[in-house]
């Protein structure tokens, strides 16, 4: 049941569902699109999140009660979304179990649930995988939806496109770290993320990508148009790479030669629910040009 609440006198917070699901994310995304299209006077920011969204408005232009009524009207309007999405799929290289996140996780070991192992060992074990390789295969096997961009500039929250029983779930660190390497691939709750900048963090750390996703100087070849790479609705597929491939990619990024594989795709929620594996296989086929 959709729940509306004011956040002070300038925000309306809309919780589509309490729990995370692809359906809740789709409804949140379609409602934020409907708000954008409706061009309600006084709306200043439209922020989609995983299973909720937030509207910022100017109460000098539109009364809070009127803003609320507009949103409820949009929700009850004939569905703005037919459950399909024209989007893009991007392949992102990940060097799992890399030396930099390893050094960091050892430095903060006393803040972790399992000080004896690594974050990967722990995540593999509590999610029922025989070893880290099997866990990495699952993490990089099925694609992920970018369900929210935020926390800090350009950081994607990602929800894996698998049935709920296959979702990877891990707790956050017992106490947050004060340091996380830039471009760490992390996981907390049911969400994956890529840390866009170096800084504090509480997610488990699995690896690192050589691919910058935020560049305020806009020098990275594919970030010249805009400094942030991701937007909600993007589909991500991780590709495990070794040290040599990682180093080569870093060199390519610095030389302005790195171009992530990106392809246009259309996604249907109904088709996904009917057969997740087949839907994902079709997406990956587009990515690999088959």
């Amino acid at each position, binding site marked *: 049941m959709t729940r509306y*609440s*004011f*956040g*002070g*006198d*300038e*925000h309306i*917070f809309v*919780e589509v*569902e*309490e*729990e*995370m*699901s692809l359906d809740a994310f789709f409804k949140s995304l379609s409602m934020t699109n409907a708000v954008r299209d409706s061009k309600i006077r006084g709306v*200043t*920011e*439209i*922020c*989609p*999140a*995983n*299973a*909720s*969204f*937030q509207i*910022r408005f100017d*109460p*000098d232009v539109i009364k*809070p*009660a009127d803003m609320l009524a507009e949103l409820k009207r949009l929700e009850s309007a004939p569905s703005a979304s037919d459950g399909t999405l024209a989007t893009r799929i991007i392949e992102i290289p990940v060097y799992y179990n890399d030396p930099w996140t390893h050094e960091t996780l050892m430095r903060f070991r006393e803040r972790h649930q399992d000080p004896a192992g690594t974050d990967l060992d722990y995540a593999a074990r509590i999610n029922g995988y025989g070893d880290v390789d099997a866990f990495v295969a699952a993490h990089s096997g099925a694609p992920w939806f970018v369900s*929210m*961009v*935020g*926390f*800090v*500039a*350009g*950081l994607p*929250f990602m929800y894996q496109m698998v049935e*709920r029983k296959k979702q990877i*779930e891990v*707790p*956050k660190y017992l106490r947050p770290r004060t340091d996380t390497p830039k471009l760490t691939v992390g996981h*907390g*709750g*049911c*969400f994956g993320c890529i840390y*866009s*900048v170096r*800084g504090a963090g509480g997610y488990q750390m699995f690896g690192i990508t050589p691919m910058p996703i*935020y560049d*305020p100087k806009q020098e990275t070849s594919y970030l010249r148009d805009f*400094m*942030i790479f991701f*937007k*909600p609705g993007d589909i991500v597929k991780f590709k495990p790479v070794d040290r040599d491939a990682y180093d080569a990619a870093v060199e390519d990024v610095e030389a302005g030669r790195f171009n992530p594989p990106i392809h246009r795709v259309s996604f249907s929620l109904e088709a996904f629910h009917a057969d997740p594996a087949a839907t994902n296989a079709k997406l990956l086929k587009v990515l690999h040009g088959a």
Partner: protein
Amino acid sequence: MALEILKPGLSTTVQDHGRPGYYHLGIPESGAMDRLSLTAANLLVGNEPGAAGLEAVFQGPEIRFQRDALVAVCGAEMPPKVDGIEQAGWTSFPVQSGQVLSFGFLKSGARAYIGISGGIDVPMVLGSRSTYPLGALGGFEGRPLKSGDRVPLALPRGGARPGRSVAPELRRMPGKAPELRVLPGLYWHRVTEEAGRNFFDDVWKVAPEADRIGYRFRGGRALDFVPRKQPFGAGSDPSNIVDSCYPYGSIQVPGGTEPIILHRDAVSGGGYFMVGAVISADMDLIGQLQPHQPTRFVKVEMEAALRARGDRSALLARLGESLS
């Protein structure tokens, strides 16, 4: 045509009225924490209300001017000095090329706003000159000032004169017993009725972890939660939610123990529940709270929040008229 930074102070950043429009990508609006004080400093020196000035927290910088300028310092009481000679706060004064602007010790408030005729002329990034240090974005090279920086100034519009002051009744500071008005909401239903009462009854103290991202408070009773089975994806702690957006001014209470009010450099979202949000009219005051300052949260409804917003707008209008 610049400012030469001799000493940067504790953390001095270029700020204007902010960079709204990119919060959905995790870029906060930034800008002066105390917008009213920056506006006053700008008007005193003949700038547009939202021109870029300097925000100095707890300790002032030391700056050699490379051209003549009109300067005003508003907000925190931290006496400005020109070549060692003290100047009045909330008042415009001249600084000549070669002279040094410095500051005495902080007496009250937390952030001083330095308005300089012409304004700071760093490049506009996404529509603003404000500094967002966490994202290395905007301001002077995306960071607080350092010794040796040369900060460019724009040409003044002229027309302003030294010796003009903001009347005391048009200055707004939190005072000795600050109260922040809060509209309960968001995930307010997660705490018990008793915890909700305690939250507003208790006196909280500003914690040392108080910055442009958020202000943390301590000293009140921990909040008890209404029991529930945690929703899928939320995490196991009762204070966890499925990661959502965080409104500016929203008050999250991780683990139910220490409230954090998100401010101009807010993290845009995350997985902690919120009890509500500080009303827009009181956001400026938070930027002037010092660590250890006892503070009360006062429960208000929307009508009162909108009246307070109207009062703040009226104050701004009177400020503008008095200095036009």
